[in-house]
């Protein structure tokens, strides 16, 4: 059991780095993809947060991005191995189009996560660790302090741009 707790925490850190870096590469903090994402960013900024981090959080809420791709790929790998992860990537692609999102962050995240998680299952991790880890990772961005999370994401975006 202590091994599982440590594995979940390591999986959380890996998932966090994976989805934040893919979202930054695809430029999610640049602007809100839909008007709702811009509205959420504006609200976070009014509360003392940072606008570009808010855009990224708004985009995560409004369309399946790399974080959703990582979670669904982890679910897919847990249930059916690599074919399950690839099926999740297809479903994320369809989900992006349903949500009026023309980007490929979600699909790329799901494909990258599928192979990454499968790789980690060969060295003693379970895909279940990554499901719990991804839920912890999204909690740190969206569920603790919107003000601080948006400032952190803006700082990372500043380094990238």
């Amino acid at each position, binding site marked *: 059991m202590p091994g599982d707790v440590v594995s979940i925490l390591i999986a959380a850190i890996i998932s966090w780095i994976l989805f934040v870096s893919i979202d930054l590469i695809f430029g999610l903090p640049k602007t809100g993809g839909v008007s709702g994402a811009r509205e959420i960013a504006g609200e976070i900024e009014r509360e003392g947060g940072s606008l570009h981090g808010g855009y990224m959080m708004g985009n995560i809420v*409004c369309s399946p991005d790399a974080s959703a791709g990582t979670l*669904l790929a*982890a*679910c897919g790998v847990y249930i059916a191995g690599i074919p399950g992860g690839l099926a999740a990537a297809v479903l994320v692609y369809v989900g992006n189009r*349903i949500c*009026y999102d023309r980007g490929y962050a979600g699909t790329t995240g799901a494909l990258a996560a599928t192979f990454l998680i499968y790789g980690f299952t060969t060295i003693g991790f379970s895909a279940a660790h990554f499901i719990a880890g991804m*839920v912890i990772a999204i909690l740190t961005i969206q*569920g603790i302090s*919107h003000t601080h999370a948006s400032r952190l994401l803006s700082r990372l975006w500043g380094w990238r741009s």
Partner: protein
Amino acid sequence: MEVITTQEIAILVCAAIGVISAVRVIAERNTMKKLPFLNVLSFAIAGSLALLLPDPLTILAAAAYFVGTTLESNAIASSYAGGPKNDE
């Protein structure tokens, strides 16, 4: 003493985070700020679904559930922002 399996620990983590975010959705007064907490709740539920029901169809169910809640959040946020006519 009963040994807790990996799957059970993962479910416990997802369920605990789901309950915390559900409480925060209820406690938050501002609708726009409820949505990120709702997003965490959707992650926790989609993860729990896959862990509780390891069946190929669960991938479809979890993705359909997740995309559905995302679309609803998108619709709520967009209608607060004045509707799709404000999208370029």
